[in-house]
């Protein structure tokens, strides 16, 4: 294996000893003994060890505000529908779904052959229990609460039919019904386990949570009773792997070392510095999954001069050199963003071509707006320098690196950008009060309705319309998007809306970020859902 290359003559003796330790390690947990040669049918068995960048606050899908929870439980708990990499919704625990004509309620026909890991039958009452649990004011829900916004009730129509109703039309709900946040857990386990449920969620999926060791690891094991075909798989039956150990390794350098040494066989969040090394080495395979939602984006506060002038906002969109971001900071962990939704959310060629990097056009637009070059290289109008203040979170090591890159790009066209790097509370306060020229932010979501949170006029002064953007036309489209159940018509609404937002230059979309995973090449069959979370029932280990 690759260990041999690491040896140097001076430490030959040590290496022999090290080799012995390695032999022990390889057959221990995390070793990759089972499995046959590549190409053959995978042999079940083995343990996969994956290092994550953080510890989840909870494994309860309804309580978590954090992606790491769903990275671990994406094949532990299952949802009514499944959202595949192709963006399509397909049946999962529900066999079919029908929206009501008024768009306020959805009727789900459920599978009859599903049991939770604790033996509790899955049925309409279980669905109702789950959704009622999320909106219970005494329950501290996480991201799930926003996805059930406007929830009225669930009605058990018969044992395997449930109707979920909302106060108003809610077309995005079918997307959220496929999200991990609204995945379904055993009512019995919720009642019996109490607080312990945070580390022992009980679902219906091909893996079960076996063990949780705080600050160290979570272990999920194969559910032998899983006989169905998971929607991401082309075969029925239980998972190949015996177990997956999810280790929490916050330090990026340490994480990379563990996969290089073989202590782990997979890592999440490969740092940009280590990415070229792993990509070049045939012992590893790097997988990049685009995050759904809004890209890393500068929300341009359209109410604050000089950004109240459309030409200035458009000039900024032409002036920002996104390719420079990719080359210097992201180095293969992101792609150029073109719209307030990432490409995986809305892949519309006309939209992708908006605002190419064109400093000459930016300068012309600024000139048109009356901003003429000044003595110090910064443009001026009526004695006023062209200065902007970018709101940013101070992460300890400074602001978001994109802030500095924006600063450099804008200086080239004669705009002086000041970065207001600050702690979170004043950062949020400034956004609520529309007192800076806007923040750089990102927003993860699986439905284009994410744009409602970012641009609806009712959310100025709240989360997250930090462009302070108010447009009757945009409001109307955002509301229409919530009503429209037909996927094709819905898409047309969001294309129209995106073009409007781009024409109004209410933001500067910077980069679409990628979830970057690396696996040893002995690990095969890794798959991902639309959320960019791994679904691992087909993952297996091969010997090479």
């Amino acid at each position, binding site marked *: 294996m690759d*260990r041999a290359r*690491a040896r140097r003559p001076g*430490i030959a003796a*040590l*290496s022999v*000893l*090290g*080799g012995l*330790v*390695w032999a022990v*390690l390889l057959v221990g947990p995390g070793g990759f003994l089972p499995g046959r040669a590549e190409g053959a049918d995978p042999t079940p068995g083995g343990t996969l060890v994956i*290092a994550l960048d953080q*510890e989840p*606050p*909870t494994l309860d899908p309804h*309580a978590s*505000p954090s992606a790491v929870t769903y990275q671990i439980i994406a094949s532990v708990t299952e949802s009514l529908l499944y959202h595949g990499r192709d963006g399509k919704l397909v049946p999962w625990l529900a066999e079919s779904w029908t929206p009501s004509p008024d768009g306020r309620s959805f009727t789900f026909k459920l599978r009859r052959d599903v049991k939770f890991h604790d033996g509790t039958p899955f049925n309409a009452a279980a669905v109702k229990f789950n959704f009622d649990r999320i909106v219970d*004011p005494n329950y*501290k829900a*996480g*991201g799930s*609460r*926003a996805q059930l*916004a406007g929830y009225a009730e669930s009605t058990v129509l018969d044992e395997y039919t449930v109707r979920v109703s909302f106060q108003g039309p809610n077309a995005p709900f079918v997307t959220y019904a496929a999200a991990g946040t609204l995945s379904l857990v055993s009512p019995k386990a919720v009642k019996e386990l109490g*607080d312990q449920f*945070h580390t022992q969620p009980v679902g219906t999926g091909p893996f079960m949570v076996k063990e949780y*060791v*705080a*600050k*160290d*690891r979570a272990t999920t094991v194969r559910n032998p009773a899983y006989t169905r075909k998971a929607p991401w798989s082309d075969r029925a039956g239980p998972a190949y792997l015996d177990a997956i150990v999810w*280790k*929490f*390794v*916050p*330090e990026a*350098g*340490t994480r990379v*070392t*563990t996969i*290089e*040494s073989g*202590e782990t066989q997979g890592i999440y969040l490969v740092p940009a510095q280590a990415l070229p090394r792993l990509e070049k080495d045939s012992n590893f395979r790097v997988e990049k999954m685009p995050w759904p939602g809004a890209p890393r984006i500068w929300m341009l506060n359209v109410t604050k001069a000089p950004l109240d002038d459309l030409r200035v906002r458009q000039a900024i969109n032409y002036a920002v050199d996104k390719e420079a971001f990719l080359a210097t900071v992201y180095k293969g962990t992101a792609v150029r963003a073109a719209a307030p939704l990432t490409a995986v959310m809305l892949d519309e060629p006309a939209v992708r071509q908006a605002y190419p990097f064109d400093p000459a056009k930016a300068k012309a637009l600024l000139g048109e707006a009356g901003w003429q070059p000044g003595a110090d290289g910064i443009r001026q109008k009526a004695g006023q320098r062209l200065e902007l203040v970018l709101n940013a979170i101070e992460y300890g090591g400074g602001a978001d690196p994109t802030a500095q890159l924006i600063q450099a790009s804008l200086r080239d066209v004669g705009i002086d950008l000041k970065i207001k790097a*600050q*702690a*979170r*509370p*004043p950062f*949020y*306060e400034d956004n609520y009060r529309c007192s800076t020229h806007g923040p750089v932010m990102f927003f993860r979501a699986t439905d284009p309705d994410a744009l409602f*949170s970012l641009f609806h006029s009712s959310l100025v002064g709240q*989360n997250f319309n930090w462009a302070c953007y108010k447009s009757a036309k945009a409001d109307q489209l955002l509301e229409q998007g919530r009503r429209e159940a037909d996927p094709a018509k819905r898409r047309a609404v969001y294309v129209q809306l995106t073009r409007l937002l781009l024409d109004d230059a209410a933001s500067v979309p910077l980069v679409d970020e990628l979830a970057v995973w690396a696996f040893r090449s002995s690990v095969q069959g890794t798959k991902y859902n639309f959320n960019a979370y791994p679904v691992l029932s087909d993952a297996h280990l091969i010997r090479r």
Partner: protein
Amino acid sequence: MLSYVAARILACVPVLVGVTLAVFSLLFLIPGDPVKMMLAEFVTSPEQVARMRSQLHLDEPILVQYGRFVGHALVGDLGTSIRSRRPVAQEIAENLGSTAVLATASMAVAVVLGVSLGLVAALFRNSWLDVLAMLVALLGVSMPSFWLGLLLILGFSLHIGWFPATGGGDLRHLVMPALTLGLIASAIIARLTRSSLLEVLGQDYVRTARAKGLAGWNVVVQHSLANALIPIVTIFGLQFGNLLAGAVIVETVFSRPGLGRLLVGGILNKDFPLIQGTILFVATAYVLINLVVDLAYAVLDPRIRLR
């Protein structure tokens, strides 16, 4: 002796009151509204903010809040973590063992290594051994722990493969974190041992002991080292604080469970009850350890208890 002990214990009281005040005011010293900050990543309604505010009793007068904070802390109730929703005291209890083991092991490394290096340097003063020992100590003082930790991982995990890079548990997991912290702490102890021992070795009674014909080793260990220990014991107590601070970094680098990780997680997640509880606990532990150190003086040096 009794009055000395009583005086030391009494002296701890104002320190501890100061600690509770500092930890309590943490919530009010940060800019902005703590509740909004804690809920920042959630889409929240004003009712949720109000509910959170009343759950944390932030709607009460400040003095009442402080009274409640101290009262609860006295009976071991440090509140409930916002992220994990579990009692902070329980979180601390679960992580204490791992950090205590790490602190003890690294202190052992520090003392054994530091005292030996200092001893060698003092006995072979101005020789190449002295220079070498002090060079090692200088390296230790100047080495950032996260860097040393990563170097050890690179060497012992990736290249030689002796120890796992991450995790807690058995002895194999303990070696590298303990070395990282211990090597750094040993540097200060080595330098101090050297200077303190050199001073004692120059004293008249040492010359007398030698003149009486006592064996060289006996003079050094029994007559000199014992008397040179006072400043070393002092630094032992102070170093304990450094060890806890170091644990914050070392536990993160080695992905080891412990109070340091707990605190870092709390800070990153803006989990105020957890931050307050952990800092209060660690600060109290620090005060108590230094109390033990003060009492140890009295045992080591009779002049102190008689004063």
